[in-house]
């Protein structure tokens, strides 16, 4: 199988590392060769962050370049717009509807673009949008929006549900397990 590429983008602190770990474990359990590339350090402090997940028969480069991603999963609307050029022609965007002002917007030096999702759709991109933040709060903690989004992803892939459940159990500390399983289920329902 040709290598497939998924990008997870968001704002440092939103939990993209856990999301990529879940996805990576599910793909490995499916028998694929997998590479997951993260950036730690300075950008984790509220900067724009990106994680690359690639899988196939044999994966070489751990990074994804412009025009290469089959799917982009975005935790935040502006980040969806920023990383859009990385989507392959015919690729798919899954995004949270959450908005977080970056510092240039807070200080009044730039404006947060309006109607981001509509504009991306107008460009002919297939978009699935979900209010992951509200669903995470419904599950019990706003920080679980990463797992809500993974639920949305799960609904649009045909991997066995048990693999997702196993991955959640492997990657989440026991005391947050129930919360995250609920978040995952809410994400799955939201995608339908």
């Amino acid at each position: 199988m040709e290598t497939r590429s998924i990008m997870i983008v968001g704002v440092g602190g939103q939990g993209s590392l856990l999301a990529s770990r879940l996805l990576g474990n599910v793909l490995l359990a499916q028998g694929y060769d997998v590479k997951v590339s993260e950036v730690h350090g300075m950008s984790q402090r509220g900067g724009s962050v990106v994680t690359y997940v690639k899988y196939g028969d044999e994966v070489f480069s751990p990074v994804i370049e412009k025009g290469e991603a089959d799917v982009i999963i975005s935790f935040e609307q502006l980040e969806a717009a920023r990383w859009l050029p990385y989507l392959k022609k015919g690729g798919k965007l899954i995004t949270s509807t959450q908005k977080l002002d970056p510092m240039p917007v807070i200080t009044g030096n730039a404006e947060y673009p309006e109607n981001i999702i509509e504009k991306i759709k107008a460009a002919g991109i297939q978009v699935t949008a979900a209010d992951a933040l509200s669903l995470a709060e419904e599950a019990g903690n706003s920080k679980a929006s990463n797992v809500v989004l993974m639920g949305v992803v799960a609904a649009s892939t045909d991997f066995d549900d048990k693999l997702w459940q196993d991955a959640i159990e492997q990657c989440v500390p026991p005391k947050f397990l129930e919360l995250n399983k609920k978040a995952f289920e809410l994400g799955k329902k939201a995608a339908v």
Partner: protein
Amino acid sequence: MKKLMLGNAAFARGLYEAGVTVVSSYPGTPSTEITEFAAEYDEIYAEWAPNEKVAMEVALGASIAGSRSFCGMKHVGLNVAADPLYTASYTGVNGGMVIAVADDPGMHSSQNEQDSRHHAIASKVLMLEPSDSAECKEFTKAAFELSEKFDTPVIVRMSTRVAHSQSAVELCDRAEPAQKEYVKDPQKYVMMPAFARGRHVFVEERTKKLREYAETSPLNKVIDNGGDIGIITSGVSYQYAREAMGNNASYLKLGVVNPLPEELIKNFCAKYKKVYVIEELDDIIESHCKKLGMNVSGKELFGYIGEISQAVVAEKLLGKKNDFTTFDGNVPVRPPVMCAGCPHRGLFYCLSKNKIRVSGDIGCYTLGASAPLSAMDTTICMGASISALHGFNKARGEEAEKSTVAVIGDSTFMHSGMTGLVNIAYNATNSTVIILDNSITGMTGHQQNPTTGKNLKGDPAAAVNLEELCKAIGIKRVRVVDPYDLAGTEAAIKEELAVSEPSVIISRRPCALLKYVKHKPALKVVTDNCKGCKMCLKLGCPAISVRDGKAVIDHTQCVGCGICSEVCKFGAISE
């Protein structure tokens, strides 16, 4: 069983499987997790040293004692540890000694983009370079064998994309090599001139042997797909080249990057019409090939700056470019910022408000340089804030002493700030040094340090008392402020700048991200009171923004630190 592992975790697994017993490191992105993962194995003693020089000396001591040892650091950390490295090359080892150095092409989290291969060449030690997690483990194990076989410390060069990518790794059992006998051997380990001269002869002989080893090392691989194009590469660049060119090129993938083989390269070059060298940062492999008289192309296509990728290789070698869609509109940048509730914010607000010049340092607080706080004039390297302030003040005299401070974190102060403070006391400038004590090493992801009272394993440890230390150094004026108390912090800064003697202000409050720090409920804006003056925005807090002319606070981010209610003159921010 195959497991998805971070390159750094696989490296730590290699340490475990190779039977390492002593690990000493200083955190630095992207190398930190090697040591954190190593600490999870009960068979390994692992510690955070105050700096990389100490860490390397600890590892060398353990090696001389007969055990397999390790120290890890980022590229600039190897500069700090260069002194022991260059002489450890002469002494050689007893138990195997491996050093991880992690380069950061693209400067994701670094102040420069240096290529550590230069250190391996200059110190004349063996250097290996893995290209994925499985190799991180295998090369680390090989490095210990080679260290003992050739009597040399071995550097394993990592880079951000190898260190911070996960890929599948096959786990093996731990070997338990017996501790080697320690025999007193001054001619090998006492590097005074008479003995060191003898060891230099040994080093040159060893280099010849290592070069012979590189010719036939299984870590250097030829992938011959025939055709006209040959590519010589190493590390993650190999992965980029392989993805872009597939079976349309042949590859010489170098796992041994110092010393480089000669015959292997000449034979490879002879087989292909066109040979490219693909390497990030400096032209080390390329220059070596050219010195051998080989006609190769490299830097004229790929340059010396930043990261390469499969797209760059495809564009340069095949002229191919991907199609993509861009967003129709302006996308504002999102630079990293201090977190909501960050204790550094209050301090930098006070410095910014009073237009004080700031000699900065390396850590989360370097973000104080960004708008809107913009409260930093210089950032150079670990510890430089204090020494450079002294120099600045010596050069400009009283005017500077009254208007310039140094800022340095608790961990960085322990690393190499203390010696600068000794210099201020000893050589007398009326300098004001602010230690930002957030009770943790923050930027690299919460590592303990000698001031926190805990060791790497989280067990209780002796804690340096910063106040007493500064006094013992000879600073008489040492005071502590709470950076959430803006009025108190501002008054302290003004007073200490005014006095005619050196002083230290300790700005003390734990990092807001620490698990034990209890947060208050999010604050709210009393919309009727808000005049839309945007005073609160001067704090640069990511939780505060303005909608329809009024401030709003994002309840998912706010931790109730309260400094915005201190700057609001209209009582518009409340609990």
